[in-house]
């Protein structure tokens, strides 16, 4: 407030030992409808999610253990409301894929050596634009929606971690990094069904994780999971 209100503070002036106290002050101008809110022009929030990698590899040799192959995501989501029913936006997220590889006679990815356990881990930074279709009546809430979009990931961490039990009973964990058989970028499509802060998501990877020159059967492409948004 630019208005000058002089309340004589004698304590500050050193004249007297008491002062005025402003117990309450309100500007009555702040009833302007804001532009930032769950159902206003702009909205952004953080979210976390966990999903499971599902489906079969493109061909035998890259089978994974269902339930143990997971996707974890920590992201920031922005939404621009176009109409009450339609919005667009984007996510920026860190996400990781952990493929728990089946250790059986068919295995050829990334080699045919069988371990007690083996995981291929990828850490990515992702960007995903999306369109949002809202349905149902709502106040200043995210409400119910279906998102359709695409995503692009840049993989900056990749490792092959295996565990073996030696004949003396010791467990040996081996981590191989600087892998040279994966593509650093990936892309796919996504769909989400949301109920306020709870969002069921599904991703389908269109690109191949492995470089074609290695002839590895491509890993399963579908992820199904749940995200929780940090908002009301």
């Amino acid at each position, binding site marked *: 407030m630019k208005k*000058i209100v*002089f309340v004589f503070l004698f304590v500050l002036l050193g004249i007297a030992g008491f002062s005025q*106290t402003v117990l309450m002050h309100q500007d009555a*101008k702040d009833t302007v409808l804001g532009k930032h809110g769950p159902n206003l022009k702009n909205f952004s929030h953080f979210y976390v999610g966990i999903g499971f990698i599902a489906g079969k590899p493109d061909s035998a040799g890259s089978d994974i253990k269902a339930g143990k192959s997971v996707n974890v995501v920590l992201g920031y989501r922005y939404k621009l409301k176009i109409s009450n029913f339609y919005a667009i936006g984007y996510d920026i997220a860190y996400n990781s894929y952990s493929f728990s590889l089946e250790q059986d006679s068919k295995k050829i990815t990334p080699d045919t050596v069988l371990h007690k356990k083996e995981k291929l881990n990828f850490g990515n930074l992702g960007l995903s634009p999306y369109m949002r279709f809202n349905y149902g009546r709502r106040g200043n809430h995210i409400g119910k929606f279906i998102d359709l979009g695409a995503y692009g990931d840049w993989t900056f961490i990749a490792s092959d971690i295996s565990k073996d039990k030696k004949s003396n009973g010791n467990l040996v964990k081996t981590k191989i990094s600087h892998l040279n058989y994966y593509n650093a970028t990936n892309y796919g499509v996504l769909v989400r069904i949301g109920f306020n802060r709870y969002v069921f998501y599904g991703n389908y990877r269109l690109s191949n994780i492995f470089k074609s020159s290695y002839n590895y059967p491509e890993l399963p492409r579908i992820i199904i999971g749940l995200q929780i948004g940090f908002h009301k």
Partner: protein
Amino acid sequence: MSRRILFVILISFFVGNIIHAQDKKYWVFLKDKKGVTFDPYSYFDKKTIERRRQYGIPLVDSTDFPLNNNYVNTIYKIADSTSNHSRWFNAMSVYATDQEIKEISKLDFVSSVSEMRSFVYTADYKNSEWDTAVSPKMLETLKKQTERMGGNYFQQAGVDGKGIRIAIFDGGFPTVDTNPAFEQIRKDGRIIKTWDFARNKEFVYSYISHGTMVMSCIAGIINGRKIGLATGAEFLLARTEVRGEFFSEEENWLAAVEWADKNGADIINSSLGYTFNRYFPNQMDGKTTLVTRSANLAAKKGMLVVNAAGNDGDNSWKIIGAPADADSALSVGGINPATDIHTAFSSYGPTWDKRLKPNVCAYGHVMAAGKNAMESTQGTSFASPLVAGFAACAWQISRGLNNMQMFRSIEESGDLFPYFDYAHGYGVPQAQYFFEHGMSVPEATFDLVTEDEFVKVIVKNEFINKKYEGAKGYLFYNIQNADGTLQEYSVISVMQKEVLKLALFNYKKGQRLNVHLGNYTRTFEF
């Protein structure tokens, strides 16, 4: 690969369609009431008829007529099930699928349909021994919460709201049928009717204890000490809420207000509000929400609607909710007994269209009779019943006033009146006003002086740092625009002679400085 993509997308839409295929709840508004007949004498309680006659309100108008049965039956055949009807809005609530509601909306006699949200809440009815212990600190708070409104004036005159019928809309009234705080009310048979609008049954003595505490702030007595002022009033108890204040049912509120009218209510206390879960701040304009329109209609039919301002003052919503935004609802804000000024959570006014709200205020931190014992609790939910109890007493001794005259009188009895702001309204209503037919001429407590480019507020010596009961020791000032709205307002403690100095050049012609100290209000025109 493309087949898989298609599969994922189809699955998602399939799930979406399952959600859509479920029944939703709608308001179906009908075009007319053709061919409907209505007998007010068999429908209304005699108190309703008395009220309407006394205040010159037509005994019957079109809103009182029931819905056309043919229309209702036609809709009933299409929809899965129907719920409440609203005579006032010529509407019925129905559960219907998307297909069914499309069919209903095409009917000739349907003017519009509007989707609702509903939530279901259940709670067990379990009573344990009620603890009547009241500590000295509790007693002190109890004393203050009624005395702050001049309750002793009513008490000394034996005024307790006798003959006034109060409808309370809330989430449940557990133990009101056994609670010692309501013993006299039960003995006298002054709980006239009850209805659970969420479950369509008579029993309301369970669920959320909020209603019990609210009722105690109107009429409870514990160990001989009044919790609220209207201990002699009659009651209609309506369970309208199914899940506390945030996820609540406006539909039940609408049905309850018609029920209250039918059963002769003079006052409705609604410690409920509908805000961000459904609405945007710009819809708090006194004409958008159905509950707000319904509150205004209730006032037109002669009832005084007292509504809590809301508890959003310290969050992003900040302003009052519906139906506290209604023109004719007496909206009640909360003050803190420790400071005697606005308590942080109490929602602020004005309405979106800049009308003054809240209208008055009362203690928002109270002692109330809970489910099993006296409890310290807070919220404008409890300021509202304190004022509803006050209104019942005031009306008992001013039966010549109609509801809106009583509304204005309660505003005028506010200890800040004619000063107001958007946190306190006109201040805390004072019983003295109704005995002295207005307030006595206040003593001048300060001067307004212009000097050079400034206007100064100079407090008279005897009022500097003076210890008063309540907020009388504080100086309230606001800057009022030419259109009557406030630009800003403040409360400051008076510790010295020159308490305020404002530079004239900062204000426009037509703006006013209103200052209030110790019952005395003066205005300076810029």
